[in-house]
């Protein structure tokens, strides 16, 4: 059985451009050793790593120097999960304490990022004080920062001093006319500047900052928010530009816009992209660039594996009482990281062997199928359907299996008696799986089983604890053998 996890251009595009062919792992394999070394245990930069390693953000950077139409500067929403939202603002001292408490408690946490809730580089003192102390006191933690780029050129020198080898720049456009529809204003040279003029300055600073970081050997990922009707047609161009300047990964994220967030786009009724539109754009960009598809657009104070948030365990009053022996924690972390790395390496070899084996088999002549998977990490199917907070979406085709995206589920089973709205929540979850033809979980209950079948999604609990890609391919082959893949049902979509 097997599957290259091929996050590259659809074959229809005709061959592969250099550097973006093959599976996600292959993409990693094609990176220079120096970069691969840096990203292999970074959950945000490596799709493989995100099944094993955790990250955290500390909210030390409240101020911002620009306004984006998808952002609202209130940050007190415990139930919201999107960038720019936090519950508790931290001082650098509190942030260092929290980071060490999390690192000791969740040893698979490898990465500390500063991402807001404003712009980290618009708060240089708080941001750099946090980085400076962490690089001294917790040298085994990778540091990274994300920024809108306006203050980036002035910060590159300082960034290069603090053991920071990853920077994310949010670049939504390289065209000031489009930028004026995304950014209502910037604060620049002691004035608030609006419109196209503001967007032009921001874009110039972003591009300059990107070039300066690359020149310093700092890894750059570019985030872009996909806004239908605003920059969706333009992002393939952005991808080309940032790749040509040396960014190593592009993360196109869907716009989050709800009226209740009070953002311009939310209130004005700007819609976000559908999963299909997002996937099409990511595929269109992937001919030019390594694409990130596993981003969860987490909060500026998120803690844990991507897709989970354990921030509640590390509130200020709780970390106050924790006594951390970081030397001991570091030793423990080292052992655990080595064990995880060994497990990842052996799985990678197994996967490579399976890919070879798959290539030897007679090639199927069947259409691609999307499948949903419930997992809590480690790259295996290990979650009950009703407990899944999100599903990972994979595409199986005669070329193998590739990771496509994640979809948030409405968790319908809380394990208690608060099940008054069971049915509608279940239906919402099923709706979120639209386009998928199978869902693989460790177990599926009787009621959801029936409703999934009725919705045209085949539930499958036959591959618990099996590696995701292997299980997806096994189910794909069963579907092929059963003659289910000859005709193209309306729900399914080709990768083109």
């Amino acid at each position, binding site marked *: 059985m097997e599957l290259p996890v091929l996050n590259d251009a659809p074959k229809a595009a005709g061959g592969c451009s250099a550097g973006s062919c093959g599976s996600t792992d292959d993409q990693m394999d094609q990176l220079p050793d120096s970069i691969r070394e840096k990203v292999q245990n970074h959950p945000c930069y490596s799709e493989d790593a995100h099944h094993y390693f955790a990250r955290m953000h500390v909210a030390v950077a*409240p101020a911002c120097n620009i306004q984006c139409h998808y952002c609202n500067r209130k940050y007190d929403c415990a139930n919201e999960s999107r960038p720019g939202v936090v519950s508790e603002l931290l001082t650098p001292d509190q942030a260092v304490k929290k980071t060490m408490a999390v690192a000791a408690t969740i040893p698979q946490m490898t990465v500390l990022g500063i991402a807001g809730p*404003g712009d980290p580089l618009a708060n240089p003192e708080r941001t750099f004080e946090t980085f400076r102390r962490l690089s001294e006191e917790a040298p085994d933690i990778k540091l990274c920062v994300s920024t809108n780029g306006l203050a980036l050129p002035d910060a590159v020198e300082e960034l290069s001093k603090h053991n920071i080898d990853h920077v994310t720049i949010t670049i939504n456009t390289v065209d000031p006319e489009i930028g004026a529809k995304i950014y209502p204003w910037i604060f620049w040279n002691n004035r608030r500047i609006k419109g196209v003029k503001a967007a032009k300055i921001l874009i110039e600073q972003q591009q300059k900052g990107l070039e300066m970081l690359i020149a310093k050997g700092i890894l750059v990922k570019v985030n872009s928010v996909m806004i239908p009707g605003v920059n969706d047609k333009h992002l393939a161009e952005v991808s080309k530009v940032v790749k040509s300047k040396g960014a190593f990964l592009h993360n196109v994220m869907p716009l989050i816009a709800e*009226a209740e967030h009070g953002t311009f786009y939310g209130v004005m009724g700007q819609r976000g992209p559908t999963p299909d539109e997002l996937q099409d754009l990511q595929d269109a960009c992937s001919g030019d660039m390594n694409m990130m598809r596993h981003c969860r657009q987490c909060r500026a104070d998120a803690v844990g594996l991507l897709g989970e948030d354990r921030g509640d365990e590390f509130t200020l009053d709780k970390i106050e009482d924790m006594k951390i022996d970081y030397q001991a924690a570091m030793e423990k972390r080292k052992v655990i990281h080595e064990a995880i790395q060994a497990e990842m390496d052996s799985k990678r070899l197994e996967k490579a062997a399976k890919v070879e084996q798959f290539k030897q088999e007679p090639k199927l002549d069947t259409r691609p199928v999307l499948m949903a998977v419930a997992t809590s990490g480690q790259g295996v199917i290990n979650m009950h359907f009703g407990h899944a907070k999100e599903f990972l979406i994979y595409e199986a085709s005669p070329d193998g299996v590739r990771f496509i995206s994640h979809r948030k589920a409405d968790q319908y089973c809380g394990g208690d008696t608060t099940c008054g709205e069971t049915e509608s929540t279940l239906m919402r979850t099923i709706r979120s799986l639209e386009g998928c033809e199978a869902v693989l979980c460790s177990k599926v209950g009787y009621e959801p089983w029936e409703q999934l079948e009725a919705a045209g999604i085949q539930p499958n609990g036959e591959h618990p604890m099996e590696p995701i890609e292997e299980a997806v391919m096994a189910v794909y082959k069963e579907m092929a053998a059963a003659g289910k893949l000859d005709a193209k049902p309306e729900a399914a979509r080709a990768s083109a």
Partner: protein
Amino acid sequence: MAVKIIESCVNCYACEPVCPSQAIYEAKPHFRVNSKKCTECEGDYPVYQCASICPIEGAILNSLGEAINPPGSLTGIPPEKMAEAMAELQAH
């Protein structure tokens, strides 16, 4: 002659470092302006620095008590549209 920060302030700190007179300070429940120190940026800048970076419409008043950034001026959301959205939310 002094500006004033009112309760809609979200404590984002953005204004504090840009004040040329160090007149802004952190306080509960929100940042405040020391009216003895505030010069309304006269002699330093042609525009209020705090109000030029503040992201919240209406949070900073001039010495006449008027919002320096009136509703709709920063977000581009027409005030009636915002009121509509908020009323909708209240209804739920």
